[in-house]
């Protein structure tokens, strides 16, 4: 009998998160950029062999740490950072609402789960819970499409290691609901979750774990809007847009208070001071937009107090790192959990674990 794991799958515009619980609820977690591209491991390692060490016969050994190549259904896919750096046609399916039921979502689920399951386990069963944005959750065709895209027996290879993952989707819930499971309060507390991603911000409100639908809303604004603004200013000054990989490193450096990477354009080095200023302004602008959106949906008093009658307000998603201060100004009682980018996936995995236990209890009754 193959081992069974509870798995939370959070496929975002910018990042995909996976959380795995084994039967004792020991947790493993991981994120990858939501970018994939067709590629060839053999071609990549042939080029690297030409530059140094010989990897013939052992192509997977030509991969550097943090690089992942998935072979599935007769095709090879570069994933995450490798796709950003080594493939011309890398895609994340940004702004495509069908991405939740796309092959890319499955590819990232298989890759992340394979990284989390112990290497000695070649075949495993995943009981999955995943989420949909509030705007699309109500569509039964979308929920059905997610299930059809992910479920099945999947033979694949990750970095040369063959695996079999049997995937079952136990439930699809609203984005934000996962975070309330993971980090919410107990009992029938009125609580809310602001989930800021790459392209969207979702507001989820609940009494205990039950959604309060009029207060659940989504908006197409996220951190990548700040990246787009930064790239536009860079292009206006230097004649070319910033690449996706450059934007990613600049924003990470900004929030981690590290020196910016060296960015060159037409043989000249971009002014770091200016880049820093533009980044500040872009994040400030988007942070203000998001704060206004939250205020418009959750205003509870004429004084402008936002979420004032909420016992708990969580800020989650990868965007939490970038705009927390803007939201704190409006919502002083905001709570930001550790690893906000994984908050939904943790809750999904916990729900998957609970549903698995209930299934077993019914089966043995």
């Amino acid at each position, binding site marked *: 009998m193959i081992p069974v794991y509870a798995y939370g799958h959070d496929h975002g515009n910018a990042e995909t998160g996976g959380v*795995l*619980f084994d039967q004792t*609820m*020991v*947790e*493993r*977690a*991981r*994120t990858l950029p939501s970018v994939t591209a067709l590629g060839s491991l053999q071609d990549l390692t042939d080029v690297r062999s030409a530059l140094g060490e010989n990897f013939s016969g052992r192509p997977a050994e030509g991969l550097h*740490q*943090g690089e992942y190549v998935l072979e599935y259904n007769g095709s090879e896919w570069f994933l995450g950072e490798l796709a950003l750096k080594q493939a011309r046609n890398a895609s994340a399916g940004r702004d495509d609402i069908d991405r939740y039921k796309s092959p890319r979502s499955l590819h990232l689920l298989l890759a992340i789960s394979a*990284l*989390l399951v112990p290497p000695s386990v070649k075949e495993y069963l995943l009981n999955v819970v995943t989420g949909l944005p509030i705007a699309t959750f109500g569509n*039964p065709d979308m929920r059905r499409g997610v*299930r059809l895209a992910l479920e099945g027996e999947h033979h694949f290879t990750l970095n040369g290691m063959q695996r079999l993952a049997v995937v079952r*989707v*136990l*439930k*699809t*819930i609203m984005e934000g*609901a996962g975070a*309330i*499971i*993971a*980090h*919410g*309060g*107990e009992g029938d507390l009125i609580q809310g979750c602001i989930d800021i991603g790459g392209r969207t911000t979702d507001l989820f409100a609940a009494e*205990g*774990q*039950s*959604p309060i639908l009029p207060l659940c809303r989504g908006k197409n604004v996220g951190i990548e809007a700040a990246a787009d603004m930064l790239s536009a200013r860079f292009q206006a000054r230097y004649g070319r847009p910033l690449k996706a990989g450059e934007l990613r490193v600049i924003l*990470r450096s900004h*929030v*981690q*208070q590290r020196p910016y990477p060296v960015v060159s354009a037409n043989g000249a080095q971009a*002014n770091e*001071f*200016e880049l820093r*200023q533009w980044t500040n302004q872009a994040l400030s602008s988007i942070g203000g937009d998001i704060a206004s959106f939250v205020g418009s949906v959750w205003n509870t008093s004429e004084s402008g107090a936002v979420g004032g009658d909420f016992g708990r307000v969580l800020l989650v998603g990868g965007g*939490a*790192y970038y705009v*927390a*201060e803007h939201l704190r100004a409006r919502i002083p009682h905001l709570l*930001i*959990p*550790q*690893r*906000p*980018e*994984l908050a939904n996936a*943790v*809750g999904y995995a*916990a*729900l998957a*674990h*609970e*549903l698995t236990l*209930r*299934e077993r209890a019914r089966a043995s009754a």
Partner: protein
Amino acid sequence: MARDRAKNAYYTVGLPLDSDTLHRLLADSEETGVSVPQLLAVRIADWYRFTVEMKSALPALPGAVPERGVPAASAHDKSGANGNGLQTRASAAAQTWGGDGE
């Protein structure tokens, strides 16, 4: 005032003439009556002090998940500030959302 290189580090800084930052720095200097070189030192010290305070208020930084994930000794909040813990909330969520897919 003579430079005391045994005590201080001195740097030359270039700011674009048409930058908002330079304009704000000059306005700051005029308003406070502090010379620009002194003000640069003061504002940099302020900035570092502020970011230390912000760091202590923020969660772990992005990209901090190691290669093989983060194995946890136990589930979230089993006996933490949230009271009943992750399993209890998951059980309540199972009641709300149900199972069996759709």
